[in-house]
């Protein structure tokens, strides 16, 4: 038995080594994904263009403008007294915000009439403007606090009855890459493990080599193990690439246990391999197995909580995503890396992955027979 499995592994590794696409998948693919999700994608965009429309050229309005700039959320593109010019810039997309300071702003402020400031937002892309809008109130209040002194001190904001203290746990600066880079482990492993296993099995069927393999004393489970082992090793290489990049390039904190992370990663890799094998038993061409893998990957990226907030989805979508292995693995990785989960905290999610492994493994073994057709 071991000899036959060894023969399969040996053969598979040789074929992988001769396939130039394999090197791309193993190294370039994780690096490309890291570059895109780690460097390019940012959920907390800063330096958004804003136009100030002001007919009130006072110390107060100037203080507000400089306070906005100091938040680093805004780049002041234009300060104009001309009504309509800023609207034009907004509709043309040159700026994303207009802050309108009314003509009698400073007079009303001094008189205590609570003048209004108007912030117009291009809300076509709500996600990108959210954090910036949240920063405006704070910036305005701080700017005026410095100038409303002496007799005007009465105009200052009253102390609120409660002092709300915000503490951002586990990711104090809210850095996006601390969230996405651990999640990438799940995405990269899903893409390569599921798609490559499915394709490697269907390639044998498509090229007619499977019939030959099955006519030999090789048992189906031996063919399976022989195919899984090399891809499993490849998955571990990818995990190391991502973890090294996380530590060295993105400086993602790692507060939990490395051993525990490795254990759940092995578990998830096996789930993905079993799933890839199951997919391969449903189709008989490489193209179809690729399409089927995509059908699995799309929801994995979009619904697993990797790209978009899990809790922002309607309940049915949340249930759907609970069925996807990456959802649970992403929680585990973020939990262990960022929150320092121990094995007791990791148990529920890891248990679900284990159940999935047993389920997919059983289906794969049962569906994959030693007969053709």
């Amino acid at each position, binding site marked *: 038995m071991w000899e036959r499995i060894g023969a*399969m592994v040996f053969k598979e590794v*040789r074929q992988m080594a001769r396939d130039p696409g394999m090197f791309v998948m193993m190294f370039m693919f994780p690096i490309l994904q890291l570059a895109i999700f780690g460097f390019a994608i940012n959920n907390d965009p800063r330096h958004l263009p804003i136009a100030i429309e002001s007919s009130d050229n006072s110390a107060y309005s100037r203080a507000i403008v400089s306070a906005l700039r100091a938040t680093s959320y805004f780049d002041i593109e234009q300060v104009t007294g001309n009504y309509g010019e800023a609207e034009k810039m907004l509709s043309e997309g040159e700026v994303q915000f207009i802050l309108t300071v009314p003509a009698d702003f400073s007079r009303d402020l001094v008189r205590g009439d609570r003048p209004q400031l108007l912030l117009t937002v291009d809300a076509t892309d709500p996600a990108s403007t959210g954090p910036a809008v949240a920063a405006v109130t704070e910036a305005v209040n701080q700017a005026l606090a410095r100038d409303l002194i002496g007799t005007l001190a009465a105009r200052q904001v009253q102390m609120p009855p409660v002092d709300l203290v915000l503490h951002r746990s586990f990711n104090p600066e809210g850095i996006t890459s601390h969230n996405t880079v651990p999640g990438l482990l799940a995405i990269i492993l899903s893409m390569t493990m599921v798609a490559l296993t499915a394709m490697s099995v269907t390639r044998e069927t498509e090229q*007619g080599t499977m019939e*030959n393999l099955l006519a030999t004393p090789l048992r189906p489970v031996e063919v399976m193990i022989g195919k899984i082992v090399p891809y499993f090793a490849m998955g571990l290489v990818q995990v190391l690439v991502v973890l090294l990049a996380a530590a060295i390039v993105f400086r993602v904190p790692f507060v939990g246990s490395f051993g525990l992370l490795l254990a759940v990663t092995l578990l998830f890799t096996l789930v993905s391999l079993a799933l890839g094998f199951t997919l391969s038993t449903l189709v008989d061409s490489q193209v179809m197995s690729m399409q089927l893998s995509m059908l699995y990957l799309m929801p994995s990226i979009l619904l697993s909580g990797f790209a978009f907030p899990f809790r922002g989805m309607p309940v049915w979508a949340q249930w759907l995503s609970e069925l996807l292995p990456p959802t649970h693995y992403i929680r585990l990785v973020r939990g262990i890396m960022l929150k320092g989960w121990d094995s007791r905290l990791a148990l529920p999610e890891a248990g679900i992955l284990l159940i999935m492994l047993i389920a997919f493994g059983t289906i794969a073994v049962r569906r994959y027979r030693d007969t053709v057709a």
Partner: protein
Amino acid sequence: MRQEPAIAVRGLTKRFGARTVVDHIDLTVEPGRICGFLGPNGSGKTTTLRMICGLLIPDEGEGEVLGLDLKAKRRAIKQQIGYMTQKFGLFSDLSIAENLEFIARVYGLDNRKTRVALALERLGLASRAEQLAGKLSGGWKQRLALAAAVLHEPKILLLDEPTAGVDPQARREFWDQIHALAREGMTVLVSTHYMDEAERCHEIAYIAYGVMLARGTTDEVIAASGLHALEGEGHGADRLATEIEGQPGVAMAAAFGTSLHVCGTDPEALRRAVEPWADRVRWSQVSPTLEDVFINLMRTATDNSVLEQA
């Protein structure tokens, strides 16, 4: 002392959905014999071969391969059977030597290196051992596939249209090898479409639409067909095929070069049918060929199946 047959199957049946691909086939092949397996495309040849080597489980029927039960001992049978698939089944991105080494390991053979080296030597591929199998031409691929199929010295060799698309010389050499293997005691079951190959077999089995229609040696099959043949030679004889084929008593007529080959089951009716052209075509009685027999069998089988459906 009578040996037990290498292959003995009875009532072998396989259905794919509602379609019966192989319908109660009986087949017995004695050890060391080369049995040609003939029949039109889609007649169930490949399916029967796959059932014998354990790649498919028959829906009905029973049998023994090398004395082992066909259904219960599939793994033990696989160890002693060599199967060469219709499509090249080795790995095109592995070299010739690597492919053979892989097969040797899978069968758990001892002295792997020696066996592979020997096989390469015998193939005449020793100098190209490192070449990728996918880069070989059709004839060489087929030789390599045969070498891989017999590497573990099986007692039975199943060949599924092994010479399709191979040039005549390579085919001749291939058949010389098959006969050499049979002399050493290997039992060979080979499916083919070529009549000259059928004639090189010890015996033949003809199946059409899943049903065995003829069985025996070439002479036996021809005799059992009850066909009689005439050959016409003379000016324009080869142009008469369509005209003569419409005559009563003529099963078929086909031109071969400048002569015309005519067959039918009733010798008298056949003679009467060609009578009108006796003035310019000289008719002589010849032995029907295997091809005549098979085409006739196939037509009858087609007619039957059409009737059944109606």
